[in-house]
């Protein structure tokens, strides 16, 4: 079982300030990485550098491709959820889930099932007047639309009540069982099975 | 061949146009140089304070 992603002595400097320095880790399928750090410690920049949105100064990010060797360019889709959660206020809860890339060709009842699974009943409300917790549930529902090898989630547990936190932990466990791995960031260590990393 | 001062200056009535062009040309050049040097001094002063 080869790791899906290898990060080797990654470091990035922004206008004379070191954002992060020689970060090394590997992500095995079904295994989680948790990046712990205070606000502005470069967690989000690290996630976006792994995704290729931002260029790093040193080090390299190697993705496993189909014939089991590593190259810089990722050959499979991965899932990214940033702080803004990518939710459109003018769309209803159902539309926010249905009108995304990963839900192409998905029958209606399956989407309804997903929404119940994450505890969202008000299907036709506009996303504008939803609480942060409910918006996070929509974002979490998107995890289940398609199976991704690697999920990169920015602070999944922030601003959540206990019920929602439990829900997310179950989902992560369930997807781990299916071989999906998670890279998540947070202020304090959460109680999911993951190898922690300070930044 | 233009000779004689008045012939040069008046240039049968169009003198001012030609000389105003020359003055504007020199003005723009000097302006460019002056801003470059002023900026240089400002940077050097801030470097000294570092």
């Amino acid at each position: 079982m080869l790791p899906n992603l290898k990060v080797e002595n990654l470091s990035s400097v922004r206008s004379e300030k070191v954002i992060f320095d020689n970060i090394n880790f590997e992500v095995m399928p079904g295994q989680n990485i948790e990046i712990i750090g205070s606000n502005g410690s470069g967690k989000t920049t690290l996630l976006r550098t792994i995704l290729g949105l931002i260029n790093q100064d040193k080090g390299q990010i190697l993705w496993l491709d189909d014939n089991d060797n590593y190259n810089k360019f990722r050959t499979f889709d991965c899932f990214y959820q940033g702080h803004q959660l990518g939710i459109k206020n003018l769309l209803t809860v159902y539309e926010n889930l249905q009108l995304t890339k990963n839900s192409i060709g998905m029958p209606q009842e399956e989407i309804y099932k997903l929404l119940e699974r994450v505890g969202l009943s008000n299907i036709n409300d506009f996303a504008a007047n939803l609480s942060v917790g409910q918006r996070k549930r929509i974002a979490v529902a998107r995890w289940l639309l398609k199976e991704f090898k690697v999920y990169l989630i920015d602070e999944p547990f922030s601003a959540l009540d206990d019920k929602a936190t439990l829900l997310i932990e179950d989902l992560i466990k369930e997807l781990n069982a299916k071989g999906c791995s998670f890279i998540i960031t947070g202020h304090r260590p959460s109680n999911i099975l993951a190898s922690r990393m300070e930044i | 061949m233009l000779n004689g001062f008045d012939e040069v200056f008046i240039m049968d009535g169009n003198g001012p146009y030609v000389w105003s062009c020359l003055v504007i040309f020199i003005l723009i050049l000097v302006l460019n140089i002056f801003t470059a040097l002023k900026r240089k001094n400002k940077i050097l002063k801030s470097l000294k304070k570092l």
Partner: protein
Amino acid sequence: MMQSSISDWLTIILRRDLIIAFRRSSTYITPLIFFLIVVTFFPLALGPQESLLSSLAPGVIWIAALLASLLAVETIFSEDFRDGTLDDFFISLEPSFILVFAKVLIHWLITGLPILIASMIAALVLYLPFESFIPMIFSLLLGTSFMSLLGALGAALSLGRSAILSAIIVLPFSIPTLLMGTSVISSSLINQDFSGYLMIMGAMLAIGIPGLCLLTVEALLLNYE
């Protein structure tokens, strides 16, 4: 199944943004109204004589169309940039400049098309003879789409900064479109052959679609550093 995912994704983006646009009706009303207001200013300012207005009509229609299509340019990327959906364009494996082209297409549908419709009313109001209606429609069709492309680049360069900046950046580059567009209508007024101008506008559009979209992707990536 690479191919199907791009066309499916494009249709999803188009459906999503059109639903949002129609929910917030101001997005396609304001360019329309702005275009008509600018057109009605000219007879008010210059007097309503028919001969004067019909000779000025090509220029007036085109200037109003250019300014109106630049009006809504700010909204192409700013909303998606703010709520994070723009990140998916660059994370996915699909070429991002096709997705940027989808956003430009939506902007054209929301602003270019209404302007095209409103230009008929403007042509009537400015006593433009009937036989040059068709050339006007064709020239505006090509012109407003090129303006949407150019506007997308301006919006990408000035994302998060003032909207006026994207207009100042884009207007000098829209002069060929303006000149070609007005010459199409004015040469159809004196029933000369105007196909040459249309061909040039078409060529500019053909080069603009890949070229400007690639540059817009580069400009958007700037905001991620």
